[in-house]
């Protein structure tokens, strides 16, 4: 994990050692990586401009959310933003369901938590009860999880926004880091109000 400015650390919970990378200042943003393992991208760097980004190795086992909840408490992170990528979408949702007060906002990057073949049905049934502000991102050329799955989260969750990232595949943050970081940061800062543009178009005022 050699990306500028990131420090490597680890936290121990019940004998389990969880490595993480940490950089930036501001509200904490906890990232749970996808199947490729913990890899830092330019998107992480961009997000450190506004957030303290903590990218964790996903603990092994059937319910990583329990271990993570304890690990984050150990690090003194009472409340935090949570970003789950691909297969970690399920862990991120489970953590948000387990700790609704602590997770301020949730971002799911190409989540694989609910699959077209019916996998994830248990989690799917619990989503209606989750009020956490949630942003679901899918790349328009995702060839791992069909982007049309985005509408399932949007339809089920009370406070969910769905955004397609054009020309990005399954690894949105790697394919379009600036676009990814911009929409994630705006959402984490403003939650549902991010639908109202603050972009300035005036030139030579």
């Amino acid at each position: 994990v050699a990306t500028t400015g990131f420090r490597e650390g680890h936290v121990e919970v019940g004998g389990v050692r969880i490595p993480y990378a940490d950089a930036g200042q501001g509200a904490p943003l906890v990232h749970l990586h996808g199947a490729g393992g913990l890899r830092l991208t330019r998107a992480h760097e961009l997000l450190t401009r506004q957030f303290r980004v903590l990218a964790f190795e996903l603990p092994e086992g059937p319910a990583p959310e329990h271990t993570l909840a304890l690990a984050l408490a150990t690090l003194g992170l009472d409340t935090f933003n949570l970003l789950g990528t691909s297969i970690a979408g399920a862990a991120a949702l489970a953590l948000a369901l387990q700790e609704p007060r602590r997770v301020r906002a949730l971002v799911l990057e190409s989540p694989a938590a609910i699959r077209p073949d019916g996998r994830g049905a248990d989690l799917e049934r619990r989503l209606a009860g989750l009020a956490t502000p949630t942003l679901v991102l899918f790349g328009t050329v995702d060839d791992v999880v069909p982007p049309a799955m985005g509408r399932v989260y949007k339809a089920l969750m009370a406070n969910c926004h769905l955004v397609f990232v054009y020309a990005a595949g399954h690894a949105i943050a790697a394919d379009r880091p600036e676009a990814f970081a911009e929409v994630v940061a705006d959402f984490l800062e403003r939650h549902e109000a991010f639908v109202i543009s603050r972009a300035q178009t005036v030139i030579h005022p």
Partner: protein
Amino acid sequence: VKVSFFETVRYRAPEALPSEWPVPSGSYDPDAGAQAYRAMIERLEYVEELGFDWVSVSEHHYSPRILTPSPIVSAAFIAAHLKRITIALLGPIVPHSNPVRVAEELAMLDTMAQGRLVVGLLRGTANEAMTYDLNPQEARERTDEGMELILRAWTEPQPFGWQGRHFQYRTISIWPRPLQQPHPPTFALGTSRESCEFAARHHLGCGVSYGPFEVMAKATRYYREQCARHGWQPSPEQIVYRANMLVAETDEDAQALLRAQPNQAPFTMRAGVRDAVMTLDSRNIAGEARAPVVSGALPTTFVGSPDTVVEQVRRCREVVGAGVLDLSLHPPGSGDLDPLMRALELFGKKVLPRIREI
């Protein structure tokens, strides 16, 4: 084949116009304009009566040559006056547009016209770069992204945001959606590799225009290859060929009409502007580079008596593979209506009934 009449409004200038493009709007005559739009409806009633399948409209700006800067307005006006014919909107220039607005307007129009809409989406001709300050180097990318957004806006059931390269929206949820589901028959218009690939990827039709059969066939062949790569085969109706046709009673008369055609576009750009367009605008036919058309006249690929033209249509069907011909029966920019009406009648009575089964 199906046959489409390309309607360009036929503005007849009361006085000679400056030949530079853009044409100063001060030289526009409002009464002549009103007359042109009135006459358009009368003409199209006749087109419908003759049995044309479609009437098509296009988007062009800043000159009287084709008086439809907003093809959606033209299409809506035509749809309100004609009850049977399919309205082919070929099409909104996507890189100029707000794609969400285009999706909304086309959905409205499809619904208001009771599902009589056909849509072509395109990058636009090289001269349109001056319109709305479109950077020719960005036009291709904006077109692809805009087309994809239009398709998504038509079909996505939940409100969604779009984090594009050229377009960004946080919330899109259009009402109405199109009457034709999931959306009206849609074509990606153009001969370029990118356009053919987009059409193949999204199961859209393909539209080519004006070039000789063999050249257009390069594009349609490439399109069919790409469709096969994506696991499907387009129907003949999914390939449109827009062309100029000069039909007359005899081959000699038709050849005489051809000889009388100008070899320059009626309104031309200043040399420096043309050079800038030539430098910044890159085009291709199925991947083979070609120069953008900026001031030259467009070729006429059907010329002759009804018998000759029927044979040319047969050959075109074989070579280009187009199941829809979108025709100008008289130079699109000409306001001289008598020859157009003569050609229309001749075509409608002596050609149209004979090419249906081709």
